[in-house]
């Protein structure tokens, strides 16, 4: 393999390792906060279950659709939302502060409260396992 090719490959590999590392550190943080044994099945259930909050039926899938590999659309404004699955959108979960900011906002909107470390870990486990 030529040198520029090798450099590109090294760079790309290190980028994807970086995002995998971010997810691992998030999960490790949730374990430190008392969560254990993350489950993709529970994550999927939480994603698709609708609740009545402020008189509206709300679920993660209201905006993100039931398929995290697909692009979503804000339920009120119609704003396009990039897919949540890391396989379809390599930018996802590469910035821990951003991930936590959106968990805080969207859990409060969707569940009427913040998500527990267990719930966040289950969701992340499910989302990071979805393949295109």
């Amino acid at each position, binding site marked *: 393999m030529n*040198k*520029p090719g*090798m*450099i590109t490959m*090294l760079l790309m590999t290190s980028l994807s390792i970086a995002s995998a590392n971010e997810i691992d550190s998030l999960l490790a943080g949730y374990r430190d906060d008392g969560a254990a044994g993350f489950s993709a099945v529970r994550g999927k259930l939480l994603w698709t279950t609708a609740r009545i909050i402020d008189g509206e039926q709300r679920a993660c899938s209201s905006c993100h659709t039931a398929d995290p590999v697909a692009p979503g659309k*804000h339920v*009120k*404004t*119609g*704003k396009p939302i990039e897919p949540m699955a890391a396989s379809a959108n390599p930018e996802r979960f590469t910035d821990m502060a951003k991930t936590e*900011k959106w968990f*805080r*906002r*969207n859990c*409060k*909107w969707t569940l009427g409260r913040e998500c527990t470390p267990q719930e966040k870990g289950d969701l992340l486990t499910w989302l990071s396992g979805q393949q295109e």
Partner: protein
Amino acid sequence: MKKTLLILISLMLGLTASVALLAGHDERGEDAHHEYHESDHDDDDDRRGWLRRIAGSSETQQYRDRGQDPAFGTYSNECGDCHMAYPPDMLAKESWRGLMANLEDHFGDNAELDAATAGEIGSFLERNAARTMGGARTSQPARITDARWFRAQHHEIPARMVKNNPGVKSFSRCEACHTRAAEGRFNEHDVRIPGYGYWDD
């Protein structure tokens, strides 16, 4: 041996990129200056202030001034994540203050920020807010679309073109019709309504 070569190549690539970036920055600066003066003649937007000074004339002008107020980047990133980062002079200081104090219920969405980021954005918005005539004599609207100047400019536009138009949906999406909204330009000559085209007043 191989490792040393790789490191050398990476260093060279990095240098080339930095030089290219620096050159690009200078060029944009000059363009911005030029367009800024030119635009003073043809812009019939009746609002003054922030639009002209920061975003008003062109994307390049916006780029140049962004460096001068570091909070502009924070504002564009955080607020522009969900909707257009509206020019701060579209609302009065009191309106921005109320809005930033209530991000947990941001017109029905949760848009809360950590205190440091919210503080930075809040003072940026208040620094660049609309100047109100006659002080706090009148109460200030919470929404841009409730401002008197906004209603006066948009009252003739029927619901089928905005609310019931799948390509627009809401007056809050300035950029759906104002093709140069991202540059801070809201001149009616640049209006194209999805599904309808030119808007002739």
